[in-house]
């Protein structure tokens, strides 16, 4: 623990991918990996090689989500598009005015939601669309882990909306601009990243209680829950900031700081089955840190101008895909 040896390297287990332009998202489908790119293309990659690339959006991809079958992307052409591992991309929705799709999310049961400006649309698994007009343009959307309920992060708080009811959404109020939103796997907590370099959380219930998580030098734009739902990792500092969500949540408790370096964390992603966190930095470095003892493994050394912009673990937790802002990408296969 006290030795000064550099972290053990997993570099030789990384297969590079050349995406050529800013990687917005990486996502594992059953058949392989897809990469959503800022120029509107989706790359399909399998067994160490790019299979092909398709144009999903005429302009650029702004946001993406997906399940085992499809990558679903929102673009600056006002379209919501599903891309499978084979075949042409398929349009799900289109904004008549071609406004940007600002945020998109998908629930495990197949409910989809996105917004163009203040208009939030929720589409259930049967394809029925319901619309909510938010008071300001949301930048973060996420479904509750169970049930058809959507959290909408916006100015001065979060709306919790049941799209299938006429009831007015519940509004969790906290002054300021709320950006990304995450819902804990047990459904008890909603957490947002804020303009003011902070996270804000609510413990849901009859009287939602607040939790403030402050002290970040930058906006914590990447959030990831541990598989057991007891930890929330976040970017925005020189190490990953990991908050404890046991019991009543992190209020009054100190977070863990993992992988502290002279760089800024841009992306975090918890392993789907272990307390291991992938941490990507703005200098291109990727570390893997075990939460239990803080031990570090080097996945990718720093590379100028290649800040990490996307992460995805496959379902089994055997492969970690990453993308960077300069169009570099890669897949780490964990040695067995």
């Amino acid at each position, binding site marked *: 623990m006290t030795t000064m040896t550099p972290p053990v390297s997993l570099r030789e287990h990384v297969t590079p991918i050349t995406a050529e332009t800013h990687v917005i998202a990486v996502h594992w489908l059953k058949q392989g990996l897809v990469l959503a790119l800022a120029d509107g293309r989706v790359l399909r990659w399998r067994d160490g090689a790019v299979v092909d690339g398709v144009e999903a959006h005429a302009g650029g991809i702004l946001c993406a989500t997906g399940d085992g079958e499809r990558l679903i992307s929102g673009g600056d052409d006002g379209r919501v598009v599903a891309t499978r591992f084979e075949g042409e991309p398929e349009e799900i929705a289109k904004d008549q005015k071609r406004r*940007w799709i600002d945020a998109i999310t998908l629930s495990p049961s197949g409910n989809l939601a996105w917004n163009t400006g203040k208009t939030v649309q929720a589409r259930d698994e049967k394809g029925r669309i319901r619309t909510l007009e938010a008071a*300001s*343009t949301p*930048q973060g959307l996420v479904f509750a882990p169970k049930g058809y309920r959507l959290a909408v992060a916006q100015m*001065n708080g979060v709306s919790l909306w049941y799209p299938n009811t006429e009831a007015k959404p519940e509004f969790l109020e906290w002054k300021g601009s709320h950006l990304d939103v995450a819902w804990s796997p047990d459904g008890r907590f909603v957490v947002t990243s804020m*303009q*003011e370099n902070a996270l804000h959380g609510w413990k849901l219930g009859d009287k939602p209680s607040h939790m403030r998580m402050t002290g970040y030098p*930058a*906006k914590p734009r990447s959030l990831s829950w541990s598989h057991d739902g007891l930890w929330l990792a976040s970017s925005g500092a020189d190490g990953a900031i990991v908050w404890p969500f046991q019991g009543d949540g992190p209020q009054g408790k100190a977070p863990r700081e993992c992988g502290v370096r002279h760089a800024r964390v841009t992306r975090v992603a918890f392993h789907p089955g272990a307390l291991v966190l992938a941490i990507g930095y703005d200098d291109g470095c990727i570390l893997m840190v075990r939460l239990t003892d803080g031990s570090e493994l080097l996945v990718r050394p720093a590379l100028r101008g290649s800040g990490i*912009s996307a992460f995805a673990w496959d379902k089994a937790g055997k492969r970690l895909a990453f993308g960077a802002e300069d169009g570099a990408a890669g897949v780490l296969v964990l040695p067995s």
Partner: protein
Amino acid sequence: MSEKIPVTVLTGYLGAGKTTLLNRILTEDHGKKFAVIVNEFGEAGIDGDLIVGADEEIFEMNNGCICCTVRGDLIRILDGLMKRKGKFDAIIVETTGLADPAPVAQTFFVDQDVGDATRLDAVVTVTDAKWLKDRLKDAPEAKNQIAFADVIVLNKIDLVTAEELAEVEAAIRAINPYAKLHKAERANVDIAALLDRNAFDLDRILDIEPDFLEAGHHHHHAEDVRSISLTVPGDVDPEKFMPWINDLTQIQGPNILRSKGILAFKNEPRRFVFQGVHMILDGDLQRDWKDGETRESRLVFIGRDLNENELRKGFEACAA
């Protein structure tokens, strides 16, 4: 690190010729590619450029500063655009005719991500020779836009007589004598005069002389928005000046639209320059005072209902 992308804010009252000017900038053969953030979406398409619709969503920062409002939509859109670096060389933000330029400008100083990737180049205000005088009477926004400008395009001069033109120019100068003023018909101003101004770059603040030659004061005391220029003939004491300017902008920030200063600090060979938008001040030590250059300290405020005597006394009390 790559160069920061310059951003030009294009403002102007309804009907002044803002859209005409925007179209000229975009269609003229200057070899530059623009990303344009417009408030009215779906106007006649302009090929080759990236056009984004914006909603002018203004919010107040949670930092206890009441006039520190920023454009949330702009932060979001610029974040999206920065993922497509290389597709454009510069960004133009068009505001609505009724917009206050301050939240747009403040966004570049308050949001760290925006400030890291882009730089505010200048606020360009298009105004109308025929109707400006009326607008100055009935539209406070029009006045703000003039006061805020680094560059003013006085458009439609072919629709007024020489006397009317002189009058409207005097009205503009009463509010803002420091902006570069270009007269135009059908917005036919040289594009080079609008872009790459570096108006907010401290290194480029060389002087704060008025942009026109006539000496002497234009006494338009009827105007609630005007500029005030103050001089201390010599050094000021930074121990006195810094608290004074900070308190002043904290208290009077809502009324001070723009401020600028070049100061000689006691025992400091370099010039201290600063510029401000409402309460947000950006200042630094710049180049050395040159041989033969008079060490003096000058401030300019453009604002609403400013008390010149009080400001003068406050500044003079900072003299070293």
